[in-house]
């Protein structure tokens, strides 16, 4: 037994000696060459959340565009894709592979908040720069980690924007919430609830509707008794359509409904097949224009140039903004790129207008949650319109 203990201790020591490398000069330029910057792109390319990976497709299309324009100081942005399947254990394996085996220069991406949360301690310890390009949970970037930057509106930014919009409608007193019981929905509803409470409003009815449910009769009938002034709906597209349809069916079609960034007006209308059903539906819309609007068209064309068969959704554009910020920071660093210099440059990104996100990106050494707000989209005079507040176009 004693001998076994000694063997164990020796092995542990030897093993940890191998791990403990100082963050040397080699480390600073790991994953860099004269003509390439390797970027680990993690995302749910498989599994039941694979539709989120559209965000990363959009982002990689932007890398391609930069590369076609000659790259950055002669270096191309080389994406090393790793699948997380939206599963925490697989996600960690992906991160460890990128960090210790592929030895990429930096990381950008990841769509699933749970996976990002699980990865955070490992990436924080590694010191390798990571731009969170899609997942929204606040805990990924708060408390601050010096190498982790959030490049999309976080859950609290979105949720607070939703609640703010709801309260911007005059005489809103009774607010009801309906949501899926998953982290995606809570990431919107929890900050919205907090914002409402801060403003003295307590939700009068809290309902759940699970993914895959094809009928909302029970929920709507409870709302019919509650008669709220506004409904916050943290539901995926299909369930949103079902919910709105049933709302109208039971004569509640006049109550405005505030939805998340997971839905958009055009698709919801397509799904319900009827303008009347969606005329009072509003969604978080992190972009400067409607998805098919003129200001978004160049971006759509860019994605289709590199991924001709890609079907666009609201996710497709969300990660491009942080890729632009990254490129700006890389350019600011100059040809002598190191990881520390990149982190310093990212901390200098201020009021960066991406030309795609409704709100600018600002990273400071104290706060890495770059996007603080979001616009809302709704129908005005029958046309989808991007709004700042109730009745105020963007």
């Amino acid at each position: 037994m004693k001998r076994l203990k000694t063997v164990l201790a020796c092995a542990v020591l030897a093993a940890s000696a191998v791990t403990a490398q100082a963050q040397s000069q080699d480390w600073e330029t790991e994953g860099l060459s004269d003509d390439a910057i390797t970027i680990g792109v993690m995302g749910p390319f498989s599994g039941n959340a694979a539709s989120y990976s559209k965000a990363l497709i959009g982002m990689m299309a932007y890398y391609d565009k930069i590369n076609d324009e000659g790259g950055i100081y002669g270096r191309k942005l080389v994406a090393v894709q790793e699948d997380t399947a939206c599963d925490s254990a697989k996600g960690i394996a992906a991160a460890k592979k990128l960090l210790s085996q592929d030895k990429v220069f930096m990381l950008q991406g990841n769509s699933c908040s749970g996976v990002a949360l699980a990865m955070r301690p490992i990436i924080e310890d590694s010191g390798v720069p990571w731009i969170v390009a899609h997942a929204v949970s606040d805990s990924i970037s708060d408390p601050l980690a010096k190498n982790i930057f959030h490049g999309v509106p976080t859950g609290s930014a979105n949720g607070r924007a939703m609640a703010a919009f709801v309260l911007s409608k005059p005489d809103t007193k009774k607010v009801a919430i309906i949501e899926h019981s998953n982290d995606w929905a809570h990431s919107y509803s929890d900050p919205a609830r907090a914002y409402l409470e801060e403003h003295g409003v307590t939700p009068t009815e809290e309902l759940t509707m699970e993914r895959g449910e094809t009928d909302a009769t029970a929920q709507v009938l409870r709302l019919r008794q509650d008669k709220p002034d506004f409904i916050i709906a943290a539901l995926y597209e299909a369930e949103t359509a079902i919910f709105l349809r049933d709302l109208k069916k039971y004569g509640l079609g006049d109550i405005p409904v505030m939805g998340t960034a997971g839905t958009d007006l055009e698709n919801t209308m397509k799904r319900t097949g009827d303008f009347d059903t969606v005329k009072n539906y509003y969604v978080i819309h992190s972009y400067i224009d409607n998805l098919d609007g003129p200001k978004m068209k160049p971006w759509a064309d860019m994605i289709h140039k590199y991924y001709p068969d890609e079907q666009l959704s609201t996710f497709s554009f969300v990660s491009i903004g942080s890729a632009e910020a990254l490129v700006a920071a890389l350019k600011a660093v100059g040809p002598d790129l190191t990881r520390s210099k990149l982190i310093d440059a990212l901390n200098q990104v201020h009021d960066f207008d991406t030309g795609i996100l409704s709100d600018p990106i600002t990273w400071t050494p104290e706060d890495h949650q770059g996007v603080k707000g979001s616009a809302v989209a709704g129908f005005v005079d029958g046309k989808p319109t991007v709004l700042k507040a109730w009745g105020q176009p963007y």
Partner: protein
Amino acid sequence: MFLQLTLGGLSQGAIYALVALSLTVVYRSTTVVNFGHGDFVMAGAFISYVLVVIAGVAFLPAAVLAVLAMFVLGVLFSRGLIRRVRGGPHIGLALMCIAAGYVLRGIARMVWGREVLPMPRVFDIEPIFIGNLVITGDAVFIIGTVLVLLLTLFGLLAFTDLGKMVQAVYQSPRGARLIGLNVELFDDFSWGVGAALGAIGGILIAPVSLLHPDLGASFLIKGFAAMTLGGFGAPFGAVLGGLILGVAEQYAGAYIDTSLIEITAYLVIVLVLFLRPQGLFGRKAVVKV
């Protein structure tokens, strides 16, 4: 509110009934519970989607083709795979079903992994208002279709030779073989019918719901709950169990808490198996040892 909930529950329950019935059809003749059946339901919906949206076929012929395709798939599954593991450990049958389900789901994911597909609406009938009660086109269409199907099926079982054959095989496969029935062929046929009925469920729900590869999983558990409630192997019980489950979900959601809708099916399974394992109409389910 009560009437409205009941109506909503019945139209949901009609789909559950169909799934439970399709499971029962296979179980009665082969004593195999198809643990991959949810994915057969999903596959039916996807095939009809391909035909309608990609090939541009009209809904009705597309639905018929999809159901036929699933019938053939069911028969092929029985002939090619189920027959070959019949001799081995009995758990192999269930695992083969699970494997087949996953393959179907994997194919769906491979082709449509990143897309969530909206199925075009088929029946946009204006809802009818009777006082406070709203009757929608969806409900009428789903309940109507299921009713017609059930009447046809039970008619076939009650009044034709086919029905007698089904009964004979269920009572004693060996006896059925002795009187000259081709039990193997009959098994294949049952798998086909089971897959086809499941596909109808998928096709009916697709326009109301969204299409995604995981569509089937939730219907499988609802089908199990309905089947357990009605009693294993009892076709009428499966239908009644489905309807009761559909209505129970609505009541639980409206009168207690909406988060209960999701687990009503599981609670039904647990309660029934502890309190009355044979369900409403099933054979005695417990062993005495």
